[in-house]
């Protein structure tokens, strides 16, 4: 009994020491975070994201993870020419939307555009910043990169579970000379909500609507297949499991050297994924019709060169700016990205917004971003 009482006292001693340390840490934490409340803005309910104290030479952004590498590269390049820093938190599109609605950041970023009604409800302006897209990747012995051809109906059928084997007559007919096994098609999709899935399911709905009936969203109820977490999860599953097909972001497939397919686009042409075919989709889309919200789903656009599974990543900003200098700083950065960021984008396998499109943004959308009725840019 004596020893146990002693060891209890030792435990209490350790607990007391821990409590003191915890109290000290909490006090320090409170001191550190109190200045973020100075603006009186409500903190968004986002885990892992703390708004930084505001200063005029730092632009704050948060949101989509897909364009994050590019925004970070642009941020560091832009800092070299202007001295303005970019602090971009890659917390997901949902978090970016919450953050800009709560006004804790200068801009939010989302892979899926918001509709006009939601923009109006929160007083937001929206414009595209960068173009990317999905490619289909397969794991088939003896099939080379860009060799396999698929029509929209076949892609829809495979992901719907109605086309189940690789030697399906429809696939064989399209691909003479390609060795197709008689094995089952293993479908791999994203298990997490993502802009990649948003683009892909919009493509299926738009291009193969009579076959694909599972709807379009960042996360859907998949009829068949297994889920992989993130691009890396889908890629790993496709690379591990023979006879599988999945969809990943173009940049990811290119950098990991996966086997991609050709697709038949809206004009009936066979196209391979490339920077040029994504740019063609962005250039051929009717952006004027998307005003004022710029809500644009870039899938299945016309044009002989167009890659059909393309999407834009969007920036969200408050129309009514509390601080003209901060709003202008952010728009200056985006202007630099539009006019001087194309090489940086290509280097990371992203596609820059075509001149005609960003011209439209600067003439039609940016003038609506104001302080006391005066546009903050130029």
């Amino acid at each position, binding site marked *: 009994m*004596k*020893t146990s*009482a*002693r*060891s209890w*006292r*030792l435990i*209490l*001693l350790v*607990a*007391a020491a*821990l*409590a*003191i340390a915890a109290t000290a840490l909490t006090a320090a934490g409170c001191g550190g975070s109190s200045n973020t409340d100075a603006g009186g803005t409500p903190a968004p309910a986002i885990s892992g994201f703390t708004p930084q104290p505001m200063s005029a030479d730092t632009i704050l952004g948060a949101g989509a993870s897909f364009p994050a590498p590019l925004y970070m590269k642009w941020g560091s390049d832009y800092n070299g020419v202007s001295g303005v820093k970019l602090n971009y938190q890659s*917390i*997901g*599109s*949902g*978090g970016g*939307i919450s953050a800009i609605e709560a006004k804790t950041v200068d801009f939010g970023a989302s892979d899926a555009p918001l509709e006009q009604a939601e923009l109006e409800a929160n007083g937001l302006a929206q414009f595209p910043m960068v173009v990317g897209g999905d490619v289909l990747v397969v794991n088939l012995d003896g099939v080379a990169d860009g060799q396999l051809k698929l029509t929209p109906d076949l892609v829809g059928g495979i992901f719907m579970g109605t086309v189940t084997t690789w030697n399906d007559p429809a696939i064989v007919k399209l691909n003479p000379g390609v060795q197709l096994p008689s094995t*089952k098609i*293993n*479908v791999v999709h994203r*298990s*997490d*909500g*993502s802009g990649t899935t948003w683009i892909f399911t919009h493509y299926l709905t738009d291009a193969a609507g009579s076959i694909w009936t*599972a*709807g*379009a*969203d*960042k*996360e*859907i*109820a*998949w009829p*068949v*297949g*297994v*889920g*992989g*977490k993130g691009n890396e*999860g889908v890629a*790993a*599953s496709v690379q*591990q*499991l*023979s*006879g599988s097909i999945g969809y990943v972001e173009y940049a990811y497939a290119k950098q990991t050297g996966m086997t991609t397919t050709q697709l038949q686009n809206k004009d009936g042409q066979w196209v391979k994924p490339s920077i040029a075919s994504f740019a063609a989709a962005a250039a051929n889309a009717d952006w004027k019709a998307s005003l004022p919200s710029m809500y644009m789903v870039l899938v299945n656009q016309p044009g002989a060169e167009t890659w059909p599974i393309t999407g834009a990543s969007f920036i969200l900003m408050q129309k009514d700016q509390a601080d003209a200098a901060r709003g202008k700083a952010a728009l200056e950065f985006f202007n630099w990205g539009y006019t001087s960021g194309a090489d940086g984008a290509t280097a990371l396998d992203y596609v820059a917004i075509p001149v005609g499109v960003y011209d439209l943004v600067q003439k039609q959308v940016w003038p609506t971003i104001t302080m006391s009725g005066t546009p903050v840019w130029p």
Partner: protein
Amino acid sequence: MSTVELEAPRSPGAPRGAAQAAPRGRRISLGDPIFQGLATACGLALAVAMFGLTGVLVYNSWPAISGLGTSVLTTVAWSPVDHQYGALAALAGTFLSTLVAMVIAVPLALVIALLLVELVHPAVARVVGTAIEMLAAIPSIIFGMVGIFVIVPFIQDRFVPWLLTTPLGSLPGIKPGAQFQGGGLSIFTAGVVLAFMVLPFITAVSRDVLRMVPQVTKEAGYGMGSTTWEVMHKISLRYANSGIVGAVFIGLGRALGETMAVAFLIGSVYTSIPRSLFDPGTSIASLIANTFSEATDKIQVSALIELGLILFLITVVFQILAQVWLRRVQRSTGGRA
């Protein structure tokens, strides 16, 4: 225990009078209430954190509890497009993957623990014991990656094709279901990797408990002419019974809540209850990890928090069952443990 006595020479009750006499003791008597207060605060903070956590979970899941009712627990339609959030598949997947893990890990852990304590040379036991403890320190994401690059292809390309040629392959629960995708990413694979993750915990605790079996008791067994097996089986395991159950529950708690490795390996199919161990499925923790960060529908966020609450309650229930069981075993073995 000798070191404890050197560091804490005063016994708790005695020195009160002495403390008032000597100035050195005065300082200590001031320290006592401070420690008492701090310790009480710590204990209270723990209780507040516990109840606060439950409160926050209930509050944030209320929109789903009131809006979706019992459909979260009773339906399998998980479809953000239609705003339906039935998570029965996640519940089923959680229990099935945990079951597979425990069926593999518990016997293996017991055999290893007995081996380390009773059969091998102490030097070997030390080396193997350290290796097992290091297994516990590996982050779960590493298990997920090893799983996806090594275990998934093995199960898909070798194990499942072989199993399906044996008579076992046509048994219900093993025979592939409608969602079968080759068996690599499946409840079974997640369970196998979970087994390796909980193995070190169960082994280490069981080993420590088995070590506490008094040498004299075992020697008495040998003296009666028992074989090594009889001593292990009838004395060691009996004596360590309740401790081993505790070890199993530690492993169970970890398996139920494990997130990353399972999210990588279980196949992440949210909309059907697995008919076979080799069908893909999902678990509560991996469903939350997969979908929470991009969930924009308020009801979906709330439904995910409700699932968190359910997982929390499941673990609490298992803890309570473990306590009840331990107490019962202690009573029947005369309070030894």
